[in-house]
């Protein structure tokens, strides 16, 4: 399965610094007999494996991984890293993703062996520091959200959502009334309906009104005694605050439903307004967004779920708990739905988030929200002539703009603008989400980008518009300055090649 003729590990032509070649795969670089690993000398006798384990269990074949030198391993992954955009390289205004700067201090905290070398199954008495940290974080997140208890187990936002829905179900079930439907606005993130299904509920979609908000009449029409609850994010996915939130909450509560807060947009309201104060019963947070734990190219995240007091007894367990004597132990809530993670959640992400919160404090978190919202509004207004806002009024931490005018005038689509922006030195915004906005381009500058960066982003978009007017074709071909040009996504799906072995066939 190894490449017949191995490709060189030392040729750097795929590093954008030098060239535009493709990077060989590690398998293509592999040469039988090479190795990088070095193991400790243990003094344990090297009894042959077949004397320890019956041969029926042993694989008669060797599973081929790759055989490379440490030098080639380093060159390969260093070059791959040069073929990858990241926050550390520049602005990453992906709407809904909160790609703010991730303080290196938080990474250093998480690299401390005093935290990261602890086995998750070690008895509580031997891991009091961790339990203290988890309890402190839970308490802190409750203050931030205005809730009374939380679980830190869910690994990401979507896991938090499903956990929240199971809490909703447990609550209603305990009341002898499991219910059937969960309401979701049409602008919702895809994880919301997917989680509803996995939570055993049916989705009822609520349309948005022409202000980009939940249509209160449509909501009321959809409500009924079989409604378990509603999932909202506020600000919603078009970056607008649901101003009628109190009315919504009352209406849902009136039919006995619960309000679920998708915390992906919590960055906008830190210290300004709290989900609990708006009437929400269940809140998940995306720590990897709001609290700046790096996204890792798609994970890990952490999606703690905080709840109001009436739901606390259902939270997943075991939970780190502060005992009366000041020590800590694991306890399981009375009517816990059970575990939602193999251990205690993404602990190192949780630790980073607490460090981030501690640096900011209450005052700093409020500043985060204020400046995130300031940046988004400035950009919205600055771009209004080029990419008008889908809903033109004060937005929160992100703004949904539309390339519809460019499409009408020049045949240039939002995707073209997004790709051309890469050539201008910026990561693209989120494209075609939310689905309710035509040619949506969703910009979330985040609070860590400067006015100069925003101005430069705006100028880049203006240049793209001029290019759209003079040479729209060139935009369909963008980007050309990147390691690969526009990628054929359709072919990947049509001709699935998801492993090197499939590629060889």
């Amino acid at each position, binding site marked *: 399965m190894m490449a017949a003729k191995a490709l060189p590990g030392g040729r750097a032509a795929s590093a954008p610094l030098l060239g535009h070649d493709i990077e060989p795969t590690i398998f293509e670089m592999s040469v039988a007999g090479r190795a990088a690993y070095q193991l400790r000398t243990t003094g344990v006798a090297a009894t042959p494996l077949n004397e320890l384990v019956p041969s029926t269990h042993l694989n008669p074949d060797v599973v081929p991984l790759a055989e490379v030198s440490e030098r080639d391993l380093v060159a390969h992954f260093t070059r791959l890293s040069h073929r990858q955009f990241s926050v550390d390289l520049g602005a990453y205004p992906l709407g809904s993703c909160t790609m703010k700067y991730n303080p290196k*201090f938080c990474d250093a905290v998480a690299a401390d062996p005093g935290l990261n070398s602890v086995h998750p199954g070690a008895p509580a008495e031997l891991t009091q520091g961790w339990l203290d940290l988890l309890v402190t974080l839970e308490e802190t997140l409750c203050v931030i959200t205005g809730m009374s208890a939380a679980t830190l187990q869910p690994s990401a936002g979507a896991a938090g959502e499903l956990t929240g829905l199971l809490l909703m179900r447990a609550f209603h079930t305990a009341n002898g009334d499991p219910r059937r439907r969960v309401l979701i606005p049409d602008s919702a993130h895809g994880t919301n309906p997917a989680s509803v299904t996995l939570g055993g509920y049916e*989705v009822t979609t609520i349309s948005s009104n022409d202000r980009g908000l939940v249509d209160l009449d449509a909501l009321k029409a959809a409500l009924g005694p079989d409604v378990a609850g509603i999932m909202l994010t506020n600000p919603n996915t078009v970056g607008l605050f649901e101003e009628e939130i109190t009315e919504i909450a009352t209406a849902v509560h009136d039919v006995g439903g619960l309000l679920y807060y998708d915390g992906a947009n919590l960055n906008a309201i830190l210290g300004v307004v709290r989900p609990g104060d708006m009437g929400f019963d269940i809140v998940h947070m995306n720590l990897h967004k709001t609290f700046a734990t790096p996204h890792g190219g798609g994970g890990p995240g952490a999606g703690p779920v905080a709840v109001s007091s009436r739901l606390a007894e259902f939270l997943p367990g075991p939970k780190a708990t502060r005992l009366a004597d000041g020590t800590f132990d694991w306890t399981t809530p009375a009517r816990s739905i059970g575990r939602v993670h193999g251990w205690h959640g993404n602990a190192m992400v949780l630790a980073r988030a607490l460090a981030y919160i501690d640096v900011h404090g209450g005052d700093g978190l409020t500043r985060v929200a204020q400046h995130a919202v300031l940046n988004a509004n400035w950009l919205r207004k600055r771009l209004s002539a080029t990419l008008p806002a889908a809903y033109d*009024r004060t937005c929160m931490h992100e703004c949904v703009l539309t390339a519809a005018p460019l499409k009408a005038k020049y045949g240039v689509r939002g995707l073209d603008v997004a790709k051309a922006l890469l050539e201008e030195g910026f990561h693209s915004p989120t494209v075609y989400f939310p689905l309710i906005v035509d040619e949506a381009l969703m910009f979330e500058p985040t609070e860590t980008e400067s006015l100069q960066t925003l101005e430069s982003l705006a100028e880049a978009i203006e240049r793209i518009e001029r290019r759209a007017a003079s040479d729209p074709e060139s935009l369909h071909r963008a980007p050309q300055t990147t390691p690969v040009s526009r990628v054929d996504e359709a072919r990947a799906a049509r001709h699935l090649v998801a492993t090197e072995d499939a590629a060889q066939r």
Partner: protein
Amino acid sequence: MADYLPHTPDEVAAMLGFLGMDSLDQLFAHIPAAVRLSQGLDLPAGMSEPDVAAVFERFTDANRATTTDMTCFAGAGAYDHEIPAVVKMLGSRSEFVTAYTPYQPEVAQGVLQAIFEYQTLISRLSGLPIANASLYDGATALVEALNLAAGATGRSKMVISSGVHPHWRAVARTFAKGTGHEIVEAPLKDGVTDWAGVDASGAAAVVAAYPNYLGILEDLTAAKQMAVADGALLVIGADPVAAGVLKTAGQWGADVFVGEGQPFGTALSYGGPYLGLFACTLEQIRRLPGRIVGETVDSNDRRSFVTTLRAREQDIRREKATSNVCTNQTLMAVTAAIQLGWLGTYGLREVATRCAQGAHYLYDQLLAIDGVRAVSTQPFFREFAVRLPESALGVLHRMADEGVLGGLAVSALAGGSDPSIDDDIDDVLLVAVTERRTRAELDNYVDLLRKAVS
């Protein structure tokens, strides 16, 4: 007061001016006053990084069970393997760490190719043709496998060996409350699954662990036969390190492989972030949960990578998606690719072999101690359970005082009694040995345990 904001007061004023506002508060004027906080958050003021570091020192000081302070014999899916400096360095390169999901493939070939290589490695180790780009952890990977099986068979009964990690079973039970799956646990007898004791008819999945959570190697022929006979999918949860030498899930006939990828370059991390491994047959590909990276070409016909089969995913299929997963564990997957690249074909075999050698040496020594008894007569691989003459937790604490984390109490793992252990569960200790444990450490362990139980 500390933060990472670039805005100077002048700039804030100018930006507000541009918006026709004169205070930051005005940005939030459209939020109903009734719900707005009047006083800000009731949290301490911000502290500088070095001050926060001092706070965290309190946490780290209070953690006794670090591998720097205690020799680690705890396992159950989380192992103290060697992670060389080179893997740490590459895995912490900021391009990998601070990127988002590769939505713009033209500037994300780094992560995309690394995932493609990861998928290849997991596919090979599982003996199955396709692997996804990662799931949260082993436990939730199992849940996704059950959901896949339900979709594939239109059934909802899940037969799960109680050799599957107790936490995984617990997680499966939790999520079954939403999906409505019926979970049937097959008990262990003499440490191996008593398949005969359960009825798999109408089952969507038969789930086995290999080795099982007690470290025991079960012959999975019966599980496969049962699955085939009953039209269920065979799901195998396997130790990916052992997979370097043992029969692959594919060779045992699995339709789905799941596993916990922590041993591939991720620190113990108090349990997370870890790495959910997932692979399956081509038949199930449209039901595969999570992200998949595929090979394609760019407009200049150069090989490129891109996330593919998006039509399964939540952002497109919404309530009909195969899974709700969005953010996964990419960084751990990239790290696993790097660690497996470092180990290479023979390094992984060597690690697996050394684990087994150490475990068997220790097991033999321990059984020679008065009062220590076997839990099973079956073969094991790199981890084993022994029955002590008293509560395992008590022994663990005494050993901890001597600088050894002697393993895990099975009762604590299982949260009480469990169909995997027929006699008193409190006395059962689960011990894992990795390639990092020296002969001297093993001998010291034996001495300490002897002292602790005598």
